[in-house]
């Protein structure tokens, strides 16, 4: 599946929620290891008897779809990973997973594909054996491949009634000219419709990206690091290292504001979406400052929510997006306008809010509160092995070094009022802005 809106929020909330603490924010006992073939493994023991969460993090997503006409393929490939092997044909794998009561699924986004399972400790060896086999020996015939292509079209269809899906399509396409972020993870419809013809290409994709240097095996729950590393090595040790590096073209700096409009066929209230080109995850200081801005200026306590939602009531959906990405992406907000005559007004209010942030004085108390909030929301995310695994897996997909999580939180703790001003000045700048509006199609005048 594509990453859901819920998961987007969860990833944002969990990973971003830095705490102001000197000690590591990872649960005690977390360990990581790099194997000779380039595979990484991370083990995090928790005191949740019997339950184990497994996530296999692949550093491949729609960002890696460099060839024209292949948008959406990383997500399609995620589906193919459930199509079986010689040792585990579909019916055998299904029976094994069913009898073990496993919760199993996967998601794909711009920078990553994550395969996740939750199960009982007694089934760990069996499940790792199955996982290792499909990552190394996947096998499917062309007819099954063509059938799975239809299921992906079904996924596009189920999303297509939602205006914001279409808005992100146009936002990314408008804001990017060269970089693969110009298409969404779902991909362009025209490309999805051509998936059935791509059987040969799918094996090329598997060879390129499903190699140990792209992978991290993460285990959280009732597991002991040493024994778990042993099992991972036993199952994945023979996996051959690859050497493919995709040629992802950097996006040249945007030099002027851009915009786009969608005329929507069915009844809808209008939407306004604004995105600004923002720094990549590797720019930790910039990323941390943006996360603080999101919480300060675009949460329910921020001035924009107060004005547009609570006081004037011209907006009823308020969805900021400040996602962590490998390369420069977009940060901004999508809002639904309750009065169709107020689109221009709302658009200008939102735009002005972003572009005036650089001049705002942030007090020490405000900074302290935002950091407190981040700390407590982080703690609230650590309540089950699956939740911890989701949070950590997302971080590892951006930087496979386990210590990077603490570095990120340290960056959050260090954010100062000057940093906020500096980042706002460079990011929330008309030159890097893209605005998309969506309105219900106007009736043709009757002749």
């Amino acid at each position: 599946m594509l990453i859901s809106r819920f998961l987007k929020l969860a990833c944002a909330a969990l990973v971003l929620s830095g705490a102001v603490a000197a000690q590591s924010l990872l649960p005690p006992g977390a360990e990581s290891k790099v194997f000779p073939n380039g595979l990484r493994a991370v083990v995090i023991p928790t005191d949740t008897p019997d339950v184990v969460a497994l996530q296999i993090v692949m550093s491949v997503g729609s960002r890696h779809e460099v060839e024209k006409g292949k948008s959406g393929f990383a997500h399609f490939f995620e589906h193919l990973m459930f199509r079986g092997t010689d040792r585990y044909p579909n019916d055998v794998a299904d029976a094994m997973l069913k009898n073990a009561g496993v919760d199993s699924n996967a998601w794909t986004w711009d920078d990553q594909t994550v395969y996740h399972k939750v199960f009982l400790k007694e089934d760990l060896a069996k499940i790792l054996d199955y996982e290792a086999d499909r990552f190394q020996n996947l096998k499917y015939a062309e007819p099954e491949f063509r059938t799975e292509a239809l299921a992906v079209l079904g996924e596009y269809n189920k999303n297509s009634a939602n205006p914001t899906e279409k808005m992100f399509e146009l936002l990314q396409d408008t804001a990017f000219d060269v970089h693969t972020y110009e298409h969404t993870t779902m991909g362009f419809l025209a490309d999805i419709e051509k998936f059935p013809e791509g059987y040969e290409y799918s094996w090329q994709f598997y060879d390129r990206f499903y190699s140990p240097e792209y992978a991290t095996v993460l285990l959280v729950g009732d597991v002991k690091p040493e024994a778990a590393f042993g099992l991972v090595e036993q199952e994945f040790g023979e996996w051959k290292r690859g050497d493919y590096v995709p040629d992802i073209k950097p996006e040249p700096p945007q030099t002027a504001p851009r915009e786009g409009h969608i005329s929507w066929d069915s009844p809808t209230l209008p939407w306004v979406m604004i995105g600004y080109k923002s720094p990549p995850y590797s720019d930790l200081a910039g990323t941390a400052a943006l996360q603080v801005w999101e919480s300060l200026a675009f949460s329910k306590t921020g001035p924009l929510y107060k004005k547009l939602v609570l006081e004037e009531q011209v907006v009823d959906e308020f969805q900021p997006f400040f996602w962590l990405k490998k390369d420069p992406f977009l940060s901004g907000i999508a809002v639904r306008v309750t009065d169709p005559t107020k689109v221009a007004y709302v658009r200008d209010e939102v735009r002005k809010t972003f572009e005036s942030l650089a001049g705002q004085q942030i007090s020490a108390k405000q900074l302290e509160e935002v950091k407190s909030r981040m700390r407590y929301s982080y703690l609230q995310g650590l309540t089950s092995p699956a939740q911890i695994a989701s949070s950590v897996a997302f971080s590892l997909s951006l930087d496979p070094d386990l210590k990077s999580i603490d570095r990120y939180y340290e960056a959050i703790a260090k954010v100062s009022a000057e940093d906020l001003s500096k980042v706002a000045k460079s990011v929330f700048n008309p030159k890097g802005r893209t605005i998309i509006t969506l309105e219900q199609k106007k009736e043709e005048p009757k002749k």
Partner: protein
Amino acid sequence: MSISSSISRAGLALLLAAGFTSPLVAQELLTQPGSSPLVNLSLQFKTGAAHDPKGAEGSAALVAAMLNEGSTQKHSYDELLGLFYPWAVEVGATVDKEVVTFIATVHRDHLDAFTELFVEMMSEPKFAKADFDRLRDKAKNFLTQDLRSNNDEELGKEALYLEVYPKSHPYSHHNRGSLAGLAALDEGKLQGFYQEQFTASNFTLGVAGGYPEGYPEKLRDRLASSLSKGSSQVKAIEITRPARPDGRRVTIVEKDTRSVAMSLGFPIEVNRSHPDWTALNLVRSFLGEHRSSNSYLYQRLREARGLNYGDYSYIEYFPNGMFLMQPDPYYPRSEQIFQIWIRPVQPETAVFTLRATLFELEKLVEHGLTQEQFEATRNFLSKNAPLLVASSERRLGYAMDSKFYGVGPYVEKLRKELDALTLDQVNGVIRRHLQAKNIEIVLISKEAEKLREALRKGVPSPMTYNSPKPEEITTEDKVIANFPLNLGEVLVVPVNQMFR
């Protein structure tokens, strides 16, 4: 887990003898102590959309919103948000037919300060005009935008419930209300509903996690003394079981959309307290475990044929299925329906898919499960059950639901009953509760008249694929293509007629 009631049986008998007739429910307490620094709260009132007065549909949900997203006598909503902000706390509300539940998770660092505000929100709501306008618009937009316009799958599921329950039934409108009901409400009416329904004698409090000793009892007593005492005029509502539809009844909701979403179902007598629940739950899981590729319908419709993204079945209300991997607690109902959810299909395969679904349901009713299917599904449910309650928040929610139904702890009960179950019992339960003859069918589609004609004429719907299929599938497809639909009424409803 411990359950206690703040009014003893003897005390209750005295009250009854004194002519205190209603409501009969006292405050109850459910506690699940744990070592986490987090404390989970769950305050449940035995009221909900089923209690909405006629012509004022949406009252329960809007009162809930006024409590958790509105101002109090002492603080504006904006001020409350500001106070909660550094603690990363939010008070959530879930509204269903028979219960309204407020939930929050708070670090024990802020438990005392939070508790003050929580009690204030529950017992001193302001019912301010500005909050009312904002929240009523939000409810209206939920119905017209989020359901009618933006989410064909949820629209189909909710439309199915509206078709199953006749207009006279307390379940016959959406939990958020109807557009006419919302239009007829004002702050005063809401306040009246609040004082009658969200009362000191009508709640269950659940507390889990690392709370200090005595905290749950203190909070219960504070709520009991600060909430409205209610009125003795409140009548209990009667929730009857609707008749199954006469034949296979189709409603096509017409809107401009790429694909066709489907939901099918009928009322069942089984809820979580029924002796057949565990067996019927096993059948549900076999036929269509939620979001799992490992169940029968999914494998026949998506895996083998690529018709859509997924196909699942349910025996309990399960909103927001497209955003959730596991069922959320706090939707307990006296009355439930059996339901099949077919995710959107390409319009040209819609009739075939509907036939295939009815064909599979008929086959299930006729043949039941095999020993192997029974055992695999039993193993799945038994091992998967602890994963449903892997956090203290969910554990508390499931315990609150068990309490509503008057049954034991979810995991223990399920596992014990699964262990004792036999294939014969399961197949007997299928024959007793499931059938494919009298069923409501909802389709969300463009060009509704065209679809209606195809359905009414029952013209064959042969399938073609983009790749060769095994003989087993092509042979079965021929049977499905000519499967007699035997439809009764086929109605077309424009989408803007929904939720009025």
